[in-house]
């Protein structure tokens, strides 16, 4: 009986006792300040609430299947428990612990004597060498050679000297134009006022040289330069879908995002709004692209299907140092 009472009393003392005042044996380091039971209560309640929120987290996690918005409740419980416990610590720091403002010297700006010693040690370390310069040179040379050797495997990362593939495309004369599901496009599928995406039959669709946009323009709209005059087929034109600025796919066709000053139809890239004119061979009307859009010559076969009549009239995709050398040496 008395044992139980002892236990009870000691528990109560543990929880609510203010602690025995210690006898000041020596001079204090941290100055003495009066206690703040009010703030203590605030901190303890914040810790309690934080613990409750923390306990809520596994509960929500366990019940996730049965409650809507589980992510919200998970975030709420975990986030709140962090914030509440953090707040308790901040309260502790600000109100329950003596905030001393102490002065102290900044560390010395420099240590001239130590510096001298260091210099001396380094200098004297090489005294035994009779041909110091030769030795240092060999050391540097060997290090550099080893560095080069260690860097060599980097070359395996990619075809660093083979830039030719950057210019290649799968388009050849006679290649059929197909849609995303490999169904051939027929000239009669292509209507005015919208655009279609086409790929070379059987080629990798992810290849930057593959995808093209198809649009049909009224015949009186065309202002093609002489060398491109035969590129359209029945009023349909095809351009590379990859923006010559930075390689995004051109996915806007005269949308409200870009209101042309004259109502020309225009192909627009949504990344930085390079705008290309489909009526004159793909010239840049506006925006940062530095090259016109490559145009693909088209033909229509006997069954009305669209086919390529050759490769593009220029290199596809974003510019690089050799992109304009394409003209001198067009890939077959």
């Amino acid at each position, binding site marked *: 009986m008395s044992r139980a009472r002892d236990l009870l009393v000691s528990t109560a003392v543990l929880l609510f006792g203010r602690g025995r005042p210690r006898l000041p044996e020596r001079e204090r380091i941290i100055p003495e300040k009066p206690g703040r039971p009010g703030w203590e209560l605030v901190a303890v309640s914040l810790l309690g609430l934080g613990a409750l929120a923390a306990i809520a987290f596994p509960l929500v996690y366990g019940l996730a299947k049965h409650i809507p918005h589980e992510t919200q409740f998970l975030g709420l419980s975990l986030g709140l428990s962090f914030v509440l416990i953090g707040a308790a610590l901040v309260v502790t720091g600000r109100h329950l612990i003596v905030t001393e403002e102490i002065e102290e010297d*900044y560390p010395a700006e420099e240590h001239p004597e130590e510096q001298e010693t260091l210099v001396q040690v380094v200098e004297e370390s090489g005294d035994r060498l009779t041909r110091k310069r030769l030795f240092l040179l060999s050391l540097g040379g060997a290090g550099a050679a080893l560095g080069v050797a260690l860097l060599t495997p980097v070359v395996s990362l990619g075809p660093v000297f083979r830039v030719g*593939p950057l210019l290649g495309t799968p388009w050849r004369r006679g290649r059929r134009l197909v849609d995303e599901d490999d169904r051939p496009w027929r000239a009669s599928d292509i209507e005015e006022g919208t655009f279609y995406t086409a790929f070379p039959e059987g080629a990798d669709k992810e*290849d930057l040289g593959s995808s093209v946009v198809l649009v049909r323009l009224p015949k009186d709209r065309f202002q093609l330069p002489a060398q491109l005059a035969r590129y359209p087929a029945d009023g349909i034109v095809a351009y590379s879908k*990859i923006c010559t600025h930075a390689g995004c796919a051109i996915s806007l066709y005269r949308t409200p*995002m870009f209101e042309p000053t004259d109502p020309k139809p225009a192909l627009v890239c949504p990344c*930085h709004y390079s705008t290309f004119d489909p009526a004159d061979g793909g010239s840049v009307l506006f925006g940062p692209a530095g090259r016109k859009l490559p145009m693909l010559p088209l033909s229509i076969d006997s069954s009305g299907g669209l086919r390529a009549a050759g490769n593009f009239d220029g290199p596809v995709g974003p510019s690089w140092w050799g992109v304009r050398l394409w003209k001198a040496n067009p890939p077959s």
Partner: protein
Amino acid sequence: MIRKAVRFLDQRTGDAPLLRKALRYLFPDHWSFLLGEVALYAFITLVATGTYLALFYSDSTKDVTYHGPYAPLRGQHMTEAYHSVLDISTSVRAGLLIRQTHHWAADVFVAAILLHLLRVFFTGAYRKPRELTYLLGLGMLMISLLEGYLGYSLADDLLSGMGLAIGYAVALSIPIVGANLAELIWNGPFPGTDAFFSRMYIAHVFLFPALIAALLAAHLGLVALKHHTQFRSEPRQTQRKIVGVPMFPGQTPRSLGLLLVTAGVLFLLGGLVQINPIWLWGPYHTYLSTNGAQPDWYLGWLIGALRLVPSFDLTIGGYTLVPNPFWGGALFPLIVFGFLALWPLAERRWITHDYGYHNLLDRPRDAPLRTAIGLGMFTWVSMIFVAGGLDRVTVMFDVDYVTMIWVFRVAIWVVPVIVGLIAHRVCIELQHGEESERMRKRAEHRAKALAETTDVI
């Protein structure tokens, strides 16, 4: 108990004096000193949440068909990478919370670094002896931008792919070596091979975080060795005497509290505020793109620059020396970081000729030229940042996009100069105001003293 532990430590390490010093290390008390701390705590949150995400993420670009719980994407082809991020978002319990918290933490991380940088710049905290600390910080900021971009790219949704395409074009655009470099990184022409994703993954979860951690350690080590700078709020604070709250007991609960509050706010954001709902964007293919997608805010300045540059590549005959994306995507950030890195040297060499040792901070008004140039630079970058979002203005307020771009192409050169001039003026005025206030006080003082002496007489 405590005594026992301390004795144990001292006997094993022999470093009781060092520990005592560490415990009593002084932190000057100013709210703006917490910005760097917040960045540190966001970094810790990033490492923790990122590690969890890595337990589920796959970096494979193998083509798979989606049969998961998100109905609109069922039957679509996608890479295993994108599939795994979808799974994290829909099937892994608490996965979405952790993913969104990770994303928010990245945004807050960079924001906190930027604010910290502004504080350091405009108070002259980078001056001798803290130039190295400053440069290490700049390095971390640069790596953090890349790190964030990689994280954004790993999800392999439509927006990731568009971002990567632009990154590829910027790499291609580097004069002379660009194409070779891009071929090396992507293992061939865009979109590259499976190996490219492995490379991004190891860089994102190991190389860059380890680099940031190493720089961080050096950064904090240098701070501790040379101690914090401080504002002069009372005469006690001088070049030689630091005034502050000791690490223990004063600072420890506050810092731990800030750590928990930062993490807590990030979890709240991650749970309550949706960010980058990748299931809406769908998988990426080179022939797809979408309109109106905004990247993470810290890439906005680069988008703005890419959009503002007019149409031209610099060519010599048939040789393309500088393709267009270089200007906005590479040269522009190079100029900004170059300016920031060289500023401490330039200032001391050409403006202040001050080679002295500084533990006291300037207020912005104390260094009018620094404030003016810094604000001008900040305005320049901010305006270019805004230019990256002008398409939103077109959508919301129906203002013609092309006109706005032309206005900005001019304004970004004019407005920063005006802002700089005004800032300079304001600083000087403030200084004069203080000076005359001080004179008035002194005169008053003297008059009073005089009155007293005459009284006596």
